[in-house]
């Protein structure tokens, strides 16, 4: 089994659905951070069978938890200080997300005015439905 060492300060995203870690890496813009990032794919998991894990050595404030919650709010966020887990952050669905997903409705004003931000709001927390702020089209 492959071993990836402990990190001193940063965060570990655990219980990522297998195969989803690269998508998260992109959405969290981890490529823009000048720090150590470990992407672990298909790790063995008692709970999930297979899972992905991301270990990032940087300040927790640099992580956009809203984006993370939108993508998968069942991910476990462990905050690490001095090599120990000091906090487990619960993820709640964000009320609004900006420029994470795009509106694909060809009749939406965002389809012709390029400079507009793509803003989605949480329309139905129970069913986890997000709608475009401008045209109210459901995000699928």
């Amino acid at each position, binding site marked *: 089994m492959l071993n990836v060492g402990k990190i001193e300060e940063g965060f570990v995203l655990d219980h990522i659905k297998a195969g989803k870690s690269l998508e998260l890496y992109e959405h969290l813009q981890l490529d823009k951070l000048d720090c150590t990032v470990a992407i672990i794919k298909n790790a063995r998991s008692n709970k999930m069978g297979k899972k992905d894990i991301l270990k990032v050595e940087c300040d927790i404030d640099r992580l956009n938890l809203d984006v993370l919650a939108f993508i998968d709010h069942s991910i476990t966020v462990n905050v690490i200080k001095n090599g120990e887990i000091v906090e487990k952050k619960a993820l709640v669905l964000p009320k609004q997300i900006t420029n994470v997903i795009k509106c694909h409705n060809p*009749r*939406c*004003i*965002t389809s012709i*005015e390029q*400079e507009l931000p793509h803003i989605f709001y949480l329309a139905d927390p129970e069913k986890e439905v997000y709608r475009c702020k*401008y045209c*109210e089209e459901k995000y699928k």
Partner: protein
Amino acid sequence: MRHLMSPLDFTVEELDRLFDLANDIERNPEKYAHACDGRILATCFYEPSTRTRLSFESAMTRLGGQVIGFSDAASSSASKGESVSDTIRIISCYADICAMRHPKEGAPMVAAEKSSIPVINAGDGGHQHPTQTLTDLLTIRSLRGTLGGFTIGLCGDLKFGRTVHSLIHALARYRDIRFLFISPEELRVPDYITDLLKKKGIPYEEVIRLEDVIADLDLLYMTRVQKERFFNEEDYVRLKDFYILDMAKLSLAREDMLVLHPLPRVNEISVEVDADPRAAYFKQAQYGVYVRMALILTLLGLA
């Protein structure tokens, strides 16, 4: 500063005040003839809609105000590629309030975000047309005396008709309303609307033939069934007459039932019905002016 993007932007109490004002304008037009002296309404119509534009222009003119604007995108700076955000910033310098119609959904909201004057959504694609809904509500309230305590039949294209969807959403906030949806299978009201009614415990039924339920109705809201909405010619021919209101069908209805239609009508209401006292669709157009007058006054803070 307030804008109007959706008919649900106003609470039921705010709508009551708006409708009271509209009814006062109806009774005492002279009292409001100079209420907007020196004010300018910009009608920014990126697609033609003569009836809605003229209704807004009539409303502002009857309040003593002036109107500037354009009536299609080709005659506006949009044809040079100007964004809605930029256009509204300029219009904000020229006018005190703006009514915007745009083929793209959400365009008036983009305008409202960048505007320093109130913006009224005068229709954005298939999305919202709030002043039509306000017109419908004012017509019902004025002619029946109250919003609530009635059975309304919505007839025709209930799948694609945004007017119908907005009206159902708006009426769902009032008490004791029962909906009867009258349409062919292909054009039934979307699930998200019936889900909303179920959730709120509002009674509704879906039927195919108008004759079967017309006797139960206090209000009949007609819409057009367009041929291109059908999958095949055969179904269209078989069903189209179900959704045409003529005197034979109207004779089955109650004496005090009201017939509404957002207009323009094509052939879904026979002209013979126009002379019947139950036909309220031309009065509806008149209420459309009153409600827009009340809206302009309210958004300008002059109410």
